[in-house]
């Protein structure tokens, strides 16, 4: 079925796109970056991080660009002062939720959270750090899971389920006590469903899932192994 071309406005600029795309995709096609974190090309979107929120006008609710389809005549605002302020708060919340200490993180310099924070000018946080006491799972031979760096974007959960089809990962608990678990909340090494493919590690935007043996700053995620690396890097900025 040939896709119908439609036009929408993004921050006032007329953009031509095709029906069925999300606002996030349409914007990217037009060379406009809407910050995103839980979105990853090739995975089903869940609209969880709320960074990609855009304003569709009319005083209605803000809509996540990653899950909202384009519609003829839509007028999308992606960078109002309110949106920018909200995005900064979201990053402040993520940075204080767990223990993101970049200077000792394997993903330092290659972390999507860090990159967004610097792109959006989050240089300090106004909320107290929670400093939760969270475990590391070092049981697996090649990979580690460091809960301290996890932002619960569930990209690993989805890549494992949607792409690898293994369903190793899930989230237990709720609210602030949500935790990533492997299989039935057992050590990763004893998760029988794991195929050791490493897709989760390459999909993780931070240093939460990493390859063993990497030192600080050494963990460069090969997200392209799952989708296209170039796309990802630009999307982050």
């Amino acid at each position, binding site marked *: 079925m040939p896709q119908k071309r439609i036009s929408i406005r993004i921050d006032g600029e007329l953009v031509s796109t095709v029906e069925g795309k999300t606002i996030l995709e349409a914007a990217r096609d037009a060379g406009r970056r809407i910050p995103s974190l839980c979105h990853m090309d090739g995975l089903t*979107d*869940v*609209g*969880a*991080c*709320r960074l990609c*929120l855009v304003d569709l006008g009319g005083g209605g*609710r*803000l809509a*996540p660009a990653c*899950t*909202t*389809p384009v519609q003829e005549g839509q007028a999308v605002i992606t960078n109002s002062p*309110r949106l920018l*302020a*909200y995005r900064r*708060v*979201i990053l402040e*919340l*993520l940075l*204080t*939720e767990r223990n993101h200490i970049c200077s000792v993180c394997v993903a330092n310099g290659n972390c999507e959270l860090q990159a967004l924070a610097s792109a959006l000018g989050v240089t300090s946080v*106004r*909320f*107290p750090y*929670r400093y939760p006491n969270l475990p590391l799972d070092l049981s697996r031979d090649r990979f580690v899971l460091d809960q301290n760096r996890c*932002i*619960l974007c*569930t990209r690993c959960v989805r890549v494992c389920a949607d792409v690898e089809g293994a369903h190793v990962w899930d*989230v237990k*608990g*709720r*609210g*602030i*006590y*949500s935790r990533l678990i492997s299989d039935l909340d057992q050590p990763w090494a004893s998760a029988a469903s794991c195929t050791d493919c490493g897709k989760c590690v390459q999909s993780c935007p931070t240093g939460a899932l990493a390859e063993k043996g990497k030192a600080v700053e050494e963990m460069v995620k090969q997200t392209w192994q799952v989708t296209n690396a170039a796309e990802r890097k630009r999307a982050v900025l």
Partner: protein
Amino acid sequence: MTPIADIGSFNAAREAGMAKLQPAAPRIGVGMGTCGRGNGAEEVYRAFAEAIEAHGLDIRLAAVGCFGACSEEPLVNVWIPGQPLVILRHVHSADAARILADVHQGRIPPDLAWCKIEEWDHITARIRYGAGFPELPQWSEIPFFHGQKKIVLRNCGLISPDDIDEYIAVGGYQALYKVLIDSRPEMVIEQVKAAKLRGRGGAGYATGLKWEFLAKAKDPSKYIVCNADEGDPGAYMNRNEIESDPHSLLEGMIICGYVTGTQQAIVYVRAEYPLAVHRLTRAVEQAREYGILGPSVLGRGVKFDIELVEGAGAFVCGEETALIASLEGFSGRPRPRPPFPAQKGLDGKPTNINNVETWYNIAPIALKGPAWFTETGSARSAGTKVFSLVGKIRNTGLVEMPLGTPLKTFIYDIGGGGVGECSIKAVQTGGPSGGCIPLEMFDTPVDYETLAQLGSIMGSGGMVVMDENNCMVDIARYFIEFTHSESCGKCVPCRVGLDKALDVLNGFTKGAGNSAQLALLDELGRMIRDTSLCGLGQTAPNPVLTTLRHFRYEFDDHIIARRCRAGVCDSLALSPCENSCPLHMNIPRFLGLLKRGRLEDAFESVILDNPLPASTGRVCQHPCDMRCRRLTMDAAVNMRDVHRFIADSILLSDHFDAMVARVADRKLPPTGKKTAVAGAGPAGLTAAFYLALLGHDVTVFESKREAGGMLRYAIPEYRLPKHVLEREVELIRRMGVKFEFGMPVSSAISLHDLDEQFDAVFLSIGTWKESWVHLPGTELKNVIPALLFLEGVASGSVSQIGRRVAVIGGGNAAVDAARTALRMGADATIVYRRERKEMPAIKEEVDAAEHEGVKLQFLSAPHRIVGDPKGNVRALEIVKTRLGEYDLTGRRKPVPTAEVARVECDAVILAVGETIDLDFARGSGLTLRENGTFVVDRFTLETSRPKFYAGGDVITGASNVSNAMGYGKKAARRMDEALMGVKRFQRLSGGFDASEYEAEPATEIARQRPAELAPAMRVKSDAEVVVGLTRGQASAECGRCLRCDVRA
């Protein structure tokens, strides 16, 4: 049971039901909802059953649902053939036998009977019970029911939920039958649309539109879901609806199934509702047996069935996508929309979800049409809504009201107003995600749009009433704690944002907070509201945002003054009594010290907290009594009389000089700062005392000849002997305070002079002008304002007032004036326009006045004073009033009736309140409010002019002694801080050794009351009426203290 396949068998079921509902013998129905059972309904039922069995009575017994009046449970209804149905309340199992005996003889026990129902409109049918029992009120005359309109609850409490025949007897399944026979499904959808029925689960989306989507969805396997996973704390309307009338729910769903072409339905019911699950299961079974569910509904060839799924009861499952996830076996986390459930819902199939209550409206609409339905409710929100009315309110329960009914109708008419003497200040609607609406907005009509405008929601219909004992900061914290623990954790704003908000709020309630955090909380709240993925997060900040908007001052209290007026946040108070005392006296300390026999230490503790302990010990309104925890056991500790005892024992004894010296020893070194106090009333004296102790030079300017203000000139000798007050003033003088009498500020010494000569000035000139009423006849001789009268008596210039005196007013001045007149040999009558309980005067004083022979006329508004040609008063004409609507202070407005009465008298005293002397205020050049009071900073008491502070009645309007003193104390502290640049106030009261008054278990003795002169003796002189506690009584009273100041 045979399936119903035609109208004949339908009618047969109907008749069978009618025979059960109105048998040939009397029928007794026991309300057996969860609420009834919780109050002992099961025992009541059993007692009836056993007695009927034992005596072989021809009386039918049925278990019915709940009639909604939870505070009156257990409810029982009784029908004697030919008579009205009578509702009995507070029935205990012990009553069963006598009820049966009475019923057997055609009577109703009068003490249990509450109201009667002669005819009931089940909407789907009318049932006549009969006329009779003229002495009983109609159900609709009971305030709790008056104005309710039972559409959803049409059958609740009247029929047996376990019996499908009874449901059919009251017109049940008739709408379904009609819809099937008409076989025009689109028309039914149009009707639901035209009826403007909106989802009752909270969001208020148009039900008809949702049905239309579903009808248009071509997929043959689509779903109807009923959300019966009621998760709001305190909300139980859905539970009650299902428990009392499960078939109405089924009927609504079957109709929807037919008109949208859907064959499968699911009821997602909360597993914590075992009784609802049980009754629903039965109802489904019965409906299947009757062929109402199954392959051919009512024999019309339409297939439809309902499955029950028990949910684990997560609040987030109120969100439809989360509910679907839960039904599919995933954890209950919402999913982004689009796709909407109407396109891709359960198992990817088109799905329509409606809340329980929505379904209950379907059969009535299908039967009576949209025009009938829209007659009830407001323009945009038709019909009724069931609310659970709970909290600090007299009548609690489930009420069904037309949408658009003003909040105050719920609170005052249905709810009966506040509990005890507490005044209501807010209502929270919509459960944990709703907002708090303040008293000033109780005119608000309750509908979807208006509530949303106020930052609240309709939600599922929770209404929690809050009074002055609720702390709004704590309320906000409580609700955030709830949503925080229910957040699914999927999206960042809700998961982490609520955690931060809770953190900040926890800090506020513990006295750790600042204004920057307040601003941050506001920003965070808006952000969570605007960015969260689902309804839970989007509405969770409502309690915070609305309390910030409407109760900002309570947040400021917590952050700036570190005080919680309601006394809820206990880290901010020493004890409830300390918190409620305007002077914040360390009450447990002086009680503890006196108990150990340390009278002098106790005195030191008292005087450092309160420089007029003997006067306040006599005339304070004692708010501490209202807050004492001992109140819940027997009676409050008599703190006021104990500190009076302590003060009297020193002030009136030869220990006086020694103790004065001990207090003076605490003075801080001279600071060289000069301070002035204008007005030597309670506020001024208090400020002067502390300023002197703090080492400042203090001069008090007073227009009168002596110190004491109202204490001296308005409060009569028999309540506060002058010599007692004089000792207190002497103590203050000996702290180094200089008095300049006959020096009214502004005429004798100008504010400019004060400004020049002093480093800081405290203005506390009080309210000395009697408000004047516009009443014909006030120009007559012997019409006198109360203050002028009392002052004249105090200074000896007035010695008689006629033989019969009428006093207009209900405050302390009115009572004082009447009792003083009595002592001058007159006959006194107090005329007040409201009821006794609303008199602002101290209750004990009103009682004492009555004992002495003062007559009290309530609900009487002065109309005119009748005089004779010589200009003498002859009588006071009054118009009787009745209590009308509630005004926004939560009191009922007195409205005049046609009844006029006369109080014969030859003098009239006006005690309608005092106001500030406007000439002075205007001349001061300070910023004033409309009523003439000074504008000051609430926390520092600074006026608009630098160096000048104000407190007491000049900022509040006429208040009372201890409030005024509280301001004097606060002003001294703030002035000192400003003068010295450091906080030094705490240094004054240090040095008490806590081991000297360690807590011991409280004793069980009753509250000690001070001896009083006999009423007959009192009126003969102005000797003090209340003699005071004896030493033994006082120390016994100390032992009653529960020592709330000691924390684990």
